């Protein structure tokens, strides 16, 4: 008996071992391909870079568009794509380990670790070089360069992203509004009434009050605080000083508005626990009258609703205004994410890298990244670019090369693959209207050490308290007590003082 068991065990081991080794050989065969290169001066420059990629499938150096970029810029690209799900952790760990690629992507200049490192001189100051590159210094990008300055210097190559059209702001079911004879809301009261009508007047016409007027969660209602305060971001200018909006009375009013809407059943009951993708699921299923998204979702999400409700029309609203008549629409600095070059890269190569980006910001390079190769991936008809079947094979479109460098156009935030003309033209109209609205953002791109250290904790406390008040797990009195306490909090005061100082410095430079 024992022997038998022993034998079968051995057989089992042998079997497993053979399978294991076999598989390992197979896999290592495809995993090989070491990196070799020569240091010839006329040979292509090797550039190591790393960036976010929203595509579901990442391309590699066998992709035609990638190759085309290498050919046209005489480079050999070594791009590491980061998946957005995990990029934040990964970038932070890379920063902390000092393991930086020649072109390092960071999502936000406000990243505290990054700011420390800039202060320690880890990265090249690119200010003196930029003017030598015609495309980088083109007027369309001027604001991008100014806004991304740190202490008056450009340490990074920003990745362009239009100021308007992005950000979480209401998109509503226009077909529902039309059916109930409602106007597009422009004030918070009207907005409330529209949602209330969605709830009570059965816009989907199935005879049941099963509509969820607005697929909100605690993250996507931030715009309400912006509307009530009349500012973008977390800071307000008062008597030439920056004050945090979290302690303002206007924020209390905003909170009460959200609470009123929640109590009236205009939001999902699971407001506090829903994740963003779950709110989008509600919208997609045709059950909900709207949610907060950027304008391109008029089609990205809108097309999904049409699969369920063919007549659905998903329309971004232009702005909302507060009681003082101040209009609010989301806007930001004209870039999203920055590229930095560590000092370990020699100056000659820095110039090569800038050359690469100069090409990428050129009209030709820009279009190559976004649309692919003319005649192969798209053809031009009446001035519009029509993608060919090859475009899908080359993975042109959302993600990949077009995540490395963005198209210098509003289409980045308002367009989407396959968007019909009527939706697109309406988006253009809306975004042009939005551009007339200048909501102040005094705290934009200001850096303070105290802010990095203390502010995230404070703001988290407040936002947790807000959520609890909204869903009735805590009282407004306790909220008031917390705010009262924060108003006299020495650390918050220190943060505000440093921010004010940074603000004045920035103003002087301008």
């Amino acid at each position: 008996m024992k022997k038998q068991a022993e034998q079968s065990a051995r057989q089992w081991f042998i079997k497993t071992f053979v399978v294991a080794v076999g598989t390992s050989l197979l896999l290592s065969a495809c995993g090989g391909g070491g990196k070799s290169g020569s240091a010839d001066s006329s040979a292509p420059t090797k550039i190591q870079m790393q960036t976010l990629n929203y595509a579901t499938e990442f391309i590699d150096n066998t992709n035609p568009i990638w190759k085309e970029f290498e050919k046209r810029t005489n480079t050999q690209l070594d791009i590491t794509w980061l998946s957005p799900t995990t990029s934040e952790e990964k970038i932070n760990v890379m920063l902390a380990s000092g393991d930086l690629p020649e072109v390092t992507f960071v999502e936000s200049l406000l990243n505290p670790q990054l700011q420390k490192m800039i202060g320690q001189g880890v990265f090249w100051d690119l200010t003196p070089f930029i003017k030598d590159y015609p495309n980088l210094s083109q007027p369309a990008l001027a604001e991008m360069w100014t806004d991304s300055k740190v202490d008056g210097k450009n340490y990074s190559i920003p990745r362009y992203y239009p100021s308007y059209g992005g950000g979480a702001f209401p998109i509503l079911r226009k077909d529902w509004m039309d059916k109930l004879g409602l106007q597009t809301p422009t004030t918070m009261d009207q907005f409330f009434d529209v949602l209330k009508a969605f709830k009570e007047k059965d816009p989907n016409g199935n005879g049941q009050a099963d509509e969820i007027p607005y697929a909100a969660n605690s993250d996507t209602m931030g715009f309400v605080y912006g509307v009530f305060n009349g500012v973008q971001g977390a800071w307000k200018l008062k008597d030439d000083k920056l004050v945090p909006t979290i302690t303002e009375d206007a924020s209390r009013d905003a909170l009460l508005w959200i609470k009123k809407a929640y109590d009236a059943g205009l939001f999902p009951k699971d407001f506090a626990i829903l994740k963003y993708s779950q709110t989008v699921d509600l919208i997609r299923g045709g059950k909900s009258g709207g949610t907060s998204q950027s304008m391109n979702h008029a089609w990205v999400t809108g097309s999904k609703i049409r699969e369920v409700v063919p007549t659905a029309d998903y329309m971004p609203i232009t702005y909302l205004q507060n009681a003082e008549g101040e209009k609010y629409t989301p806007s930001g600095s004209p870039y999203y994410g920055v590229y930095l070059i560590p000092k370990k890269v020699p100056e000659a190569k820095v110039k090569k890298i800038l050359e690469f980006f100069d090409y990428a910001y050129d009209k030709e390079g820009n279009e190559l990244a976004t649309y692919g190769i003319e005649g192969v991936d798209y053809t031009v008809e009446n001035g519009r670019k029509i993608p060919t079947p090859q475009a899908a094979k080359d993975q042109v479109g959302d993600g990949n090369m077009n995540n490395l460098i963005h198209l210098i156009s509003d289409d980045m935030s308002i367009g989407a693959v396959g968007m019909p003309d009527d939706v697109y033209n309406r988006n253009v109209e809306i975004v042009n209207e939005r551009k007339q609205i200048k909501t102040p953002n005094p705290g934009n791109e200001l850096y303070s050490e105290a802010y990095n250290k203390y502010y995230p904790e404070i703001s988290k406390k407040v936002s947790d308290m807000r959520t609890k008040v909204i869903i009735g797990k805590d009282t407004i009195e306790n909220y008031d007590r917390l705010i009262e306490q924060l108003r006299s909090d020495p650390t918050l005061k220190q943060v505000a003082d440093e921010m004010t100082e940074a603000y004045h410095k920035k103003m002087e430079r301008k």
Partner: protein
Amino acid sequence: MSETSMGGQSEQRSAPGKSAPLREITLKKRRLWPDLRRDKYLYLLAMPGLLFFIIFKYIPITNLVIGFQDYSPYLGIMGSKWVGFEHFVRFFSNPDFWMLLRNTLGISLMNLVFFFPAPIILALMMNEVRNQIMKRSVQSLIYIPHFLSWVLIYGLTYLMFSQSEGLINKLLEASGKSTVDILSNPHYFWGMLTVQSIWKEVGWGTIIFLAAIAGVDPQQYEAAVMDGAGRFRRMWHITLPAMRNVIMILFILRLGTIMDTGFEQVYLMMNAAVTEVAEVFDTYVYRVGIRQGEFSYSTAIGLFKSVVGVVLVVLANKAAKRLGQDSLY
């Protein structure tokens, strides 16, 4: 323990000489080499494991010194400024410290009281099943949840318990009762975590106990039956003692990880309404350390956690020894 008796034997065997101090040293040396040579294959077997511990545990552990520094990746460990216990002071004086400690210990204790014994009880129950087909199918079914990742379990929890989509609330609504919020209620949070852990791991946890039970000599049961022992007495006097060794070791190890709470699980289940009872050391370290990039500060917190773990294990092991139970070392 038996170790010393072994040592004694070898001393007798290989120490024929008189006990002059100088000679003893050379003798010890001479004794060492033959021993090493005799056991060369054993060392060979141990080698990969030891190398693993040195490379992937000890070398990174030396980096824990950054907990006493203002670490900057640019300056490296050698160049970064030493700040002593500054990070520890900052952590202990943070009013949130007590909240974190309470939540961590609360969740761990819930696990220790309800989750730890669950697989033991289940294993005992399964051991009493005579029908082999049923035993096997039950076994196969209860193992399944172990293979699911936490993200998926979060999704399933939402499908079951959420207020608008949850099955339970839909049933409540259908029977004319009002719905309950389970997921955003601070009172239910710890319980929810415990239920999830039990659901996911209880079946899987029985493996180790069933393996221990399998080692019991069937003759023992037969003898007990002859003596007229009932089921519960057999369970108590034969099955349980057979598991004692494993239970004890697992218990001591679990004490050592009392400061750890499944990060992914808590992080996914956390929402603004329950932060007060949900924020634990692990989520705090993640948020402050990785997301806000305060590596020195979060390392200091990690160190604090480890020290508490070590102390607990040493104490538990002492207690186990004193009670005459099997101990860890």
